[in-house]
């Protein structure tokens, strides 16, 4: 479930990044690479889990699935927060800088 949610997040962000290309000011490429990196890593984790447990790896009870769903959503939220911090630090449209210095954006 966590892998699925992260893959959906990665695909969605990649589509938005592609639609906005070549404008890279919103750092969407960074966000999509973060989600793709996590998706690849959870995929390997799933393959190792399948090799160890076999088909029972996919048979989760409702409580486990619900926990994985919360985890997946929390992971996406954390990824978005990290991206937001990067965006605020880089401040491509100089919004934060102009707020702090009190100057108007040109």
């Amino acid at each position, binding site marked *: 479930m*966590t892998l699925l949610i*992260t893959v959906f997040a990665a695909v969605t962000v990649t589509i938005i990044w592609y639609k906005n290309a070549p404008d890279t000011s919103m750092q969407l*490429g*960074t966000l999509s*690479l*973060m*989600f*793709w*990196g*996590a*998706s*690849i*890593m*959870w*995929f*390997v*984790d799933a*393959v*190792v889990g399948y090799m160890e447990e076999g088909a029972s790896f996919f048979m989760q009870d409702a409580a486990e699935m619900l926990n994985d769903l919360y*985890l997946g959503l*929390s*992971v996406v939220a*954390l*990824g978005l927060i*990290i991206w937001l911090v990067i965006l605020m630090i880089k401040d491509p449209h100089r919004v934060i800088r102009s707020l702090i210095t009190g100057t108007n954006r040109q």
Partner: protein
Amino acid sequence: MACFLVPASEAVITTVAEKIIRSKEKNDDSNNASSVPKVRFSDKLGWLNKMLWGGSALLAFEHIWHGEVIPVFPFLTAVQNGETGEMLAEMGTAGVGMAVLVTLIWGGMLAASHVIENRKVDISSEEAGQ
């Protein structure tokens, strides 16, 4: 258990490499001016860094969620419970597998960008010949 530590370690190495290569490329850029714009290798290494750091950070969060990483020494429950051998075995299989697959996929991205850049060079040399 602690599989995310392997790609995180790779990320440290590739980040240092990116910084060194970027400073070298800045020196080279001031000497050479290419007519066809190419993506710098340091920028391409940045793609790998973002995948490794992002993936490791999100996986670390998952380990905290499952109680495998704790905020007190020794920080890993596997070490606290005397399962260090199992943890190292997992790092050797899943952790190394993660780092290798991410790097392989990045290699594929490098190959694709190389093909696209060469196509761009061919088109611009054809245009120059006309």
